[in-house]
Protein backbone atom coordinates (compact mmCIF):
# COMPACT_ATOMS: atom_id res chain seq x y z
CA UNK A 1 0.00 0.00 0.00
CA UNK A 2 2.77 2.36 1.06
CA UNK A 3 4.68 1.50 -2.12
CA UNK A 4 1.67 2.25 -4.28
CA UNK A 5 1.25 5.54 -2.50
CA UNK A 6 4.92 6.40 -3.02
CA UNK A 7 4.60 5.57 -6.72
CA UNK A 8 1.54 7.79 -7.11
CA UNK A 9 3.36 10.58 -5.30
CA UNK A 10 6.29 10.23 -7.72
CA UNK A 11 3.91 10.47 -10.65
CA UNK A 12 2.39 13.62 -9.19
CA UNK A 13 5.76 15.33 -8.88
CA UNK A 14 6.82 14.18 -12.32
CA UNK A 15 3.87 15.94 -13.98
CA UNK A 16 5.37 19.48 -14.07
CA UNK A 17 8.23 17.99 -16.09
CA UNK A 18 5.74 17.12 -18.83
CA UNK A 19 4.21 20.59 -18.89
CA UNK A 20 5.43 23.19 -21.34
CA UNK A 21 5.02 26.90 -21.93
CA UNK A 22 1.77 28.09 -23.45
CA UNK A 23 2.13 28.57 -27.18
CA UNK A 24 2.11 32.25 -28.18
CA UNK A 25 -1.43 33.24 -29.16
CA UNK A 26 -0.17 34.95 -32.27
CA UNK A 27 2.93 35.31 -34.39
CA UNK A 28 2.74 39.08 -34.26
CA UNK A 29 2.08 40.72 -30.88
CA UNK A 30 2.00 44.23 -32.39
CA UNK A 31 -0.75 43.26 -34.82
CA UNK A 32 -2.61 41.50 -32.01
CA UNK A 33 -2.46 44.61 -29.83
CA UNK A 34 -3.83 46.78 -32.68
CA UNK A 35 -6.58 44.24 -33.33
CA UNK A 36 -7.56 44.23 -29.64
CA UNK A 37 -7.55 48.03 -29.46
CA UNK A 38 -9.92 48.29 -32.41
CA UNK A 39 -12.23 45.46 -31.37
CA UNK A 40 -12.56 46.84 -27.84
CA UNK A 41 -14.29 49.86 -29.47
CA UNK A 42 -16.82 47.56 -31.12
CA UNK A 43 -19.97 46.09 -29.63
CA UNK A 44 -20.61 42.39 -30.03
CA UNK A 45 -24.11 41.99 -31.49
CA UNK A 46 -24.69 38.58 -29.96
CA UNK A 47 -23.98 39.58 -26.35
CA UNK A 48 -24.60 43.26 -26.58
CA UNK A 49 -22.93 44.43 -23.39
CA UNK A 50 -19.58 42.97 -24.33
CA UNK A 51 -17.00 44.24 -26.76
CA UNK A 52 -15.91 42.10 -29.68
CA UNK A 53 -12.50 41.90 -28.00
CA UNK A 54 -14.04 40.41 -24.82
CA UNK A 55 -16.73 38.16 -26.18
CA UNK A 56 -16.48 34.42 -26.71
CA UNK A 57 -19.46 34.35 -29.05
CA UNK A 58 -18.77 32.63 -32.38
CA UNK A 59 -19.47 35.79 -34.32
CA UNK A 60 -17.04 37.78 -32.16
CA UNK A 61 -14.30 35.22 -32.80
CA UNK A 62 -14.98 35.44 -36.56
CA UNK A 63 -14.95 39.24 -36.48
CA UNK A 64 -11.66 39.30 -34.55
CA UNK A 65 -10.20 37.06 -37.26
CA UNK A 66 -11.63 39.37 -39.90
CA UNK A 67 -10.10 42.45 -38.28
CA UNK A 68 -6.77 40.65 -37.89
CA UNK A 69 -6.82 39.73 -41.58
CA UNK A 70 -7.70 43.25 -42.67
CA UNK A 71 -4.89 44.76 -40.60
CA UNK A 72 -2.45 42.21 -41.98
CA UNK A 73 -3.51 43.30 -45.49
CA UNK A 74 -2.48 46.82 -44.52
CA UNK A 75 -5.97 48.26 -44.13
CA UNK A 76 -6.26 51.32 -41.84
CA UNK A 77 -8.25 51.57 -38.62
CA UNK A 78 -10.88 53.76 -40.32
CA UNK A 79 -11.32 51.18 -43.04
CA UNK A 80 -11.90 48.46 -40.45
CA UNK A 81 -14.45 50.60 -38.59
CA UNK A 82 -16.33 51.47 -41.78
CA UNK A 83 -16.30 47.79 -42.76
CA UNK A 84 -18.12 47.07 -39.50
CA UNK A 85 -20.62 49.95 -39.67
CA UNK A 86 -21.42 49.13 -43.33
CA UNK A 87 -22.63 45.73 -42.16
CA UNK A 88 -23.98 46.24 -38.68
CA UNK A 89 -24.70 49.97 -38.48
CA UNK A 90 -23.56 52.61 -35.98
CA UNK A 91 -24.88 50.36 -33.23
CA UNK A 92 -21.58 48.43 -33.23
CA UNK A 93 -19.65 51.55 -32.25
CA UNK A 94 -19.39 52.23 -28.54
CA UNK A 95 -18.73 55.86 -29.52
CA UNK A 96 -21.32 56.60 -32.22
CA UNK A 97 -20.67 59.54 -34.57
CA UNK A 98 -22.23 62.93 -33.77
CA UNK A 99 -25.16 63.49 -36.15
CA UNK A 100 -28.75 64.78 -35.82
CA UNK A 101 -30.08 61.42 -34.60
CA UNK A 102 -27.44 61.16 -31.86
CA UNK A 103 -27.41 64.81 -30.69
CA UNK A 104 -29.67 64.02 -27.71
CA UNK A 105 -27.45 61.10 -26.78
CA UNK A 106 -24.25 63.14 -26.92
CA UNK A 107 -25.44 66.42 -25.43
CA UNK A 108 -28.54 65.43 -23.44
CA UNK A 109 -26.72 64.69 -20.15
CA UNK A 110 -24.64 67.90 -20.28
CA UNK A 111 -27.77 69.93 -21.13
CA UNK A 112 -29.61 68.43 -18.15
CA UNK A 113 -26.66 69.17 -15.85
CA UNK A 114 -26.31 72.80 -17.01
CA UNK A 115 -30.10 73.26 -16.81
CA UNK A 116 -30.14 71.91 -13.26
CA UNK A 117 -27.27 74.16 -12.17
CA UNK A 118 -28.97 77.22 -13.70
CA UNK A 119 -32.21 76.41 -11.88
CA UNK A 120 -30.30 75.96 -8.62
CA UNK A 121 -28.46 79.28 -8.99
CA UNK A 122 -31.71 81.12 -9.83
CA UNK A 123 -33.51 79.69 -6.80
CA UNK A 124 -30.63 80.46 -4.42
CA UNK A 125 -30.28 84.02 -5.70
CA UNK A 126 -33.99 84.68 -5.39
CA UNK A 127 -33.94 83.33 -1.82
CA UNK A 128 -30.95 85.44 -0.80
CA UNK A 129 -32.88 88.57 -1.80
CA UNK A 130 -35.87 87.68 0.38
CA UNK A 131 -36.31 89.33 3.76
CA UNK A 132 -35.82 87.20 6.91
CA UNK A 133 -39.51 87.12 7.81
CA UNK A 134 -40.28 85.34 4.54
CA UNK A 135 -38.79 82.14 5.98
CA UNK A 136 -40.14 79.88 8.65
CA UNK A 137 -38.22 80.42 11.89
CA UNK A 138 -35.29 78.12 12.48
CA UNK A 139 -36.52 75.76 15.19
CA UNK A 140 -33.13 75.11 16.77
CA UNK A 141 -32.28 78.81 16.98
CA UNK A 142 -35.72 79.53 18.44
CA UNK A 143 -35.28 76.92 21.16
CA UNK A 144 -31.89 78.34 22.12
CA UNK A 145 -33.33 81.82 22.36
CA UNK A 146 -36.07 80.48 24.63
CA UNK A 147 -33.49 78.71 26.80
CA UNK A 148 -31.49 81.93 27.17
CA UNK A 149 -34.44 83.96 28.41
Amino acid at each position, binding site marked *: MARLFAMLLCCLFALPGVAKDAAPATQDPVLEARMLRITSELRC*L*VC*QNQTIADSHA*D*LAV*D*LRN*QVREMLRDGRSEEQVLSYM*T*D*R*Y*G*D*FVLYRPPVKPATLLLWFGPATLLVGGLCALVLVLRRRSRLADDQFEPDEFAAEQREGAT
Partner: protein
Amino acid sequence: MKSLRFIAPLAIFAILVVFLFRGLNLDPREVPSPLINKPAPAFTLTRLDDATRTIRREDMLGKVWMLNVWASWCVACRQEHPVLVEFARTKSVALIGLNYKDTRPDASGWLKQFGNPYDASIFDSEGKVGIDFGVYGVPETFVIDKQGVIRMKQIGPVTPEVLATRIQPLIKELNG
Protein backbone atom coordinates in the same frame (compact mmCIF):
# COMPACT_ATOMS: atom_id res chain seq x y z
CA MET B 1 -47.63 81.62 -11.97
CA LYS B 2 -47.92 79.85 -8.64
CA SER B 3 -49.42 76.75 -10.27
CA LEU B 4 -46.42 76.48 -12.62
CA ARG B 5 -44.33 75.39 -9.63
CA PHE B 6 -46.43 72.27 -9.38
CA ILE B 7 -47.10 71.68 -13.06
CA ALA B 8 -43.47 71.91 -14.20
CA PRO B 9 -42.13 68.96 -12.16
CA LEU B 10 -45.20 66.95 -13.12
CA ALA B 11 -44.59 67.68 -16.81
CA ILE B 12 -40.92 66.67 -16.54
CA PHE B 13 -41.96 63.48 -14.78
CA ALA B 14 -44.50 62.72 -17.51
CA ILE B 15 -41.82 63.15 -20.21
CA LEU B 16 -39.51 60.75 -18.33
CA VAL B 17 -42.32 58.21 -18.06
CA VAL B 18 -42.91 58.41 -21.81
CA PHE B 19 -39.20 57.78 -22.48
CA LEU B 20 -39.01 54.88 -20.03
CA PHE B 21 -42.18 53.30 -21.36
CA ARG B 22 -40.89 53.56 -24.92
CA GLY B 23 -37.62 51.98 -23.79
CA LEU B 24 -39.43 49.04 -22.25
CA ASN B 25 -41.16 48.28 -25.53
CA LEU B 26 -38.02 48.35 -27.68
CA ASP B 27 -36.26 45.07 -28.40
CA PRO B 28 -32.52 45.68 -28.14
CA ARG B 29 -31.91 42.47 -30.11
CA GLU B 30 -33.44 44.02 -33.20
CA VAL B 31 -30.70 46.19 -34.56
CA PRO B 32 -31.82 48.05 -37.70
CA SER B 33 -29.71 46.92 -40.63
CA PRO B 34 -27.81 49.58 -42.59
CA LEU B 35 -28.19 47.31 -45.64
CA ILE B 36 -31.90 48.08 -46.15
CA ASN B 37 -32.37 49.76 -49.56
CA LYS B 38 -28.74 49.05 -50.44
CA PRO B 39 -27.59 46.55 -53.07
CA ALA B 40 -27.15 43.07 -51.63
CA PRO B 41 -23.48 42.24 -51.08
CA ALA B 42 -21.81 40.26 -53.85
CA PHE B 43 -21.30 36.57 -53.18
CA THR B 44 -20.25 33.41 -54.98
CA LEU B 45 -20.93 30.24 -53.03
CA THR B 46 -21.30 26.59 -53.90
CA ARG B 47 -24.63 24.87 -53.59
CA LEU B 48 -25.25 22.79 -50.51
CA ASP B 49 -26.32 19.79 -52.60
CA ASP B 50 -23.59 20.13 -55.24
CA ALA B 51 -20.13 21.47 -54.37
CA THR B 52 -19.26 21.90 -58.07
CA ARG B 53 -22.04 24.39 -58.88
CA THR B 54 -22.05 27.95 -57.59
CA ILE B 55 -24.70 30.62 -57.18
CA ARG B 56 -23.76 34.28 -57.49
CA ARG B 57 -25.60 37.48 -56.66
CA GLU B 58 -25.83 38.22 -60.41
CA ASP B 59 -27.68 34.93 -61.05
CA MET B 60 -30.58 36.23 -58.99
CA LEU B 61 -30.97 39.60 -60.75
CA GLY B 62 -34.29 40.11 -62.53
CA LYS B 63 -36.46 38.31 -60.00
CA VAL B 64 -37.72 39.01 -56.53
CA TRP B 65 -36.19 36.54 -54.11
CA MET B 66 -35.78 35.74 -50.45
CA LEU B 67 -32.61 34.76 -48.68
CA ASN B 68 -33.15 32.77 -45.50
CA VAL B 69 -30.15 32.22 -43.23
CA TRP B 70 -30.35 28.87 -41.47
CA ALA B 71 -28.22 26.18 -39.85
CA SER B 72 -28.78 22.68 -38.56
CA TRP B 73 -27.46 23.74 -35.12
CA CYS B 74 -29.95 26.62 -34.88
CA VAL B 75 -32.86 25.91 -32.54
CA ALA B 76 -35.09 28.80 -33.64
CA CYS B 77 -34.74 27.55 -37.24
CA ARG B 78 -36.69 24.43 -36.29
CA GLN B 79 -39.49 26.62 -35.04
CA GLU B 80 -39.43 28.64 -38.27
CA HIS B 81 -39.03 25.75 -40.68
CA PRO B 82 -42.65 24.52 -40.99
CA VAL B 83 -43.71 28.10 -41.78
CA LEU B 84 -41.19 28.24 -44.64
CA VAL B 85 -42.19 24.79 -45.94
CA GLU B 86 -45.81 25.91 -46.00
CA PHE B 87 -44.88 29.24 -47.63
CA ALA B 88 -42.78 27.51 -50.32
CA ARG B 89 -45.88 25.63 -51.50
CA THR B 90 -47.37 28.94 -52.69
CA LYS B 91 -44.42 29.31 -55.10
CA SER B 92 -44.80 33.09 -54.90
CA VAL B 93 -41.08 33.86 -54.73
CA ALA B 94 -37.68 32.21 -55.18
CA LEU B 95 -36.42 31.11 -51.77
CA ILE B 96 -32.68 30.65 -51.38
CA GLY B 97 -31.23 29.24 -48.17
CA LEU B 98 -27.91 30.46 -46.80
CA ASN B 99 -26.58 27.55 -44.82
CA TYR B 100 -24.50 29.34 -42.20
CA LYS B 101 -21.45 27.85 -40.44
CA ASP B 102 -22.60 24.28 -40.86
CA THR B 103 -21.32 21.05 -42.37
CA ARG B 104 -22.73 19.51 -45.55
CA PRO B 105 -23.75 16.17 -43.95
CA ASP B 106 -25.48 17.88 -40.99
CA ALA B 107 -27.27 20.37 -43.21
CA SER B 108 -28.39 17.81 -45.81
CA GLY B 109 -29.61 15.48 -43.07
CA TRP B 110 -31.56 18.32 -41.48
CA LEU B 111 -33.32 19.12 -44.76
CA LYS B 112 -34.13 15.46 -45.29
CA GLN B 113 -35.60 15.24 -41.81
CA PHE B 114 -37.66 18.45 -41.79
CA GLY B 115 -38.33 18.99 -45.51
CA ASN B 116 -36.68 21.32 -47.99
CA PRO B 117 -38.51 24.57 -48.76
CA TYR B 118 -35.57 26.08 -50.65
CA ASP B 119 -35.16 26.37 -54.39
CA ALA B 120 -31.49 26.01 -53.52
CA SER B 121 -29.27 26.43 -50.51
CA ILE B 122 -25.81 27.94 -50.67
CA PHE B 123 -23.09 26.75 -48.36
CA ASP B 124 -21.25 29.33 -46.22
CA SER B 125 -19.16 27.20 -43.89
CA GLU B 126 -16.91 30.04 -42.67
CA GLY B 127 -19.73 32.55 -42.32
CA LYS B 128 -18.00 35.16 -44.51
CA VAL B 129 -21.06 35.87 -46.65
CA GLY B 130 -23.05 35.94 -43.42
CA ILE B 131 -20.81 38.74 -42.16
CA ASP B 132 -21.25 40.63 -45.45
CA PHE B 133 -25.01 40.43 -44.96
CA GLY B 134 -24.62 41.64 -41.36
CA VAL B 135 -25.98 38.39 -39.95
CA TYR B 136 -25.64 38.20 -36.17
CA GLY B 137 -28.37 35.79 -35.16
CA VAL B 138 -29.76 32.88 -37.12
CA PRO B 139 -32.43 32.71 -38.51
CA GLU B 140 -32.54 35.91 -40.52
CA THR B 141 -34.45 36.54 -43.72
CA PHE B 142 -33.91 39.12 -46.46
CA VAL B 143 -36.29 40.16 -49.24
CA ILE B 144 -34.37 41.26 -52.33
CA ASP B 145 -35.90 42.97 -55.37
CA LYS B 146 -35.32 42.54 -59.13
CA GLN B 147 -32.45 45.05 -59.10
CA GLY B 148 -30.68 43.11 -56.34
CA VAL B 149 -31.53 45.66 -53.64
CA ILE B 150 -32.34 44.47 -50.10
CA ARG B 151 -35.84 45.71 -49.26
CA MET B 152 -36.52 44.06 -45.94
CA LYS B 153 -34.81 42.10 -43.21
CA GLN B 154 -36.49 39.90 -40.64
CA ILE B 155 -34.38 39.13 -37.58
CA GLY B 156 -35.43 35.93 -35.86
CA PRO B 157 -37.96 33.36 -37.06
CA VAL B 158 -40.41 34.22 -39.82
CA THR B 159 -43.88 33.77 -38.37
CA PRO B 160 -47.20 33.45 -40.25
CA GLU B 161 -48.02 36.99 -39.06
CA VAL B 162 -44.78 38.43 -40.46
CA LEU B 163 -45.43 36.62 -43.75
CA ALA B 164 -49.00 37.89 -44.01
CA THR B 165 -48.47 41.45 -42.83
CA ARG B 166 -45.01 42.33 -44.10
CA ILE B 167 -43.43 39.87 -46.51
CA GLN B 168 -46.31 38.94 -48.82
CA PRO B 169 -47.53 42.55 -49.35
CA LEU B 170 -43.94 43.59 -50.10
CA ILE B 171 -43.44 40.77 -52.61
CA LYS B 172 -46.73 41.69 -54.32
CA GLU B 173 -45.57 45.30 -54.53
CA LEU B 174 -42.14 44.36 -55.89
CA ASN B 175 -43.60 42.00 -58.49
CA GLY B 176 -46.31 44.46 -59.51
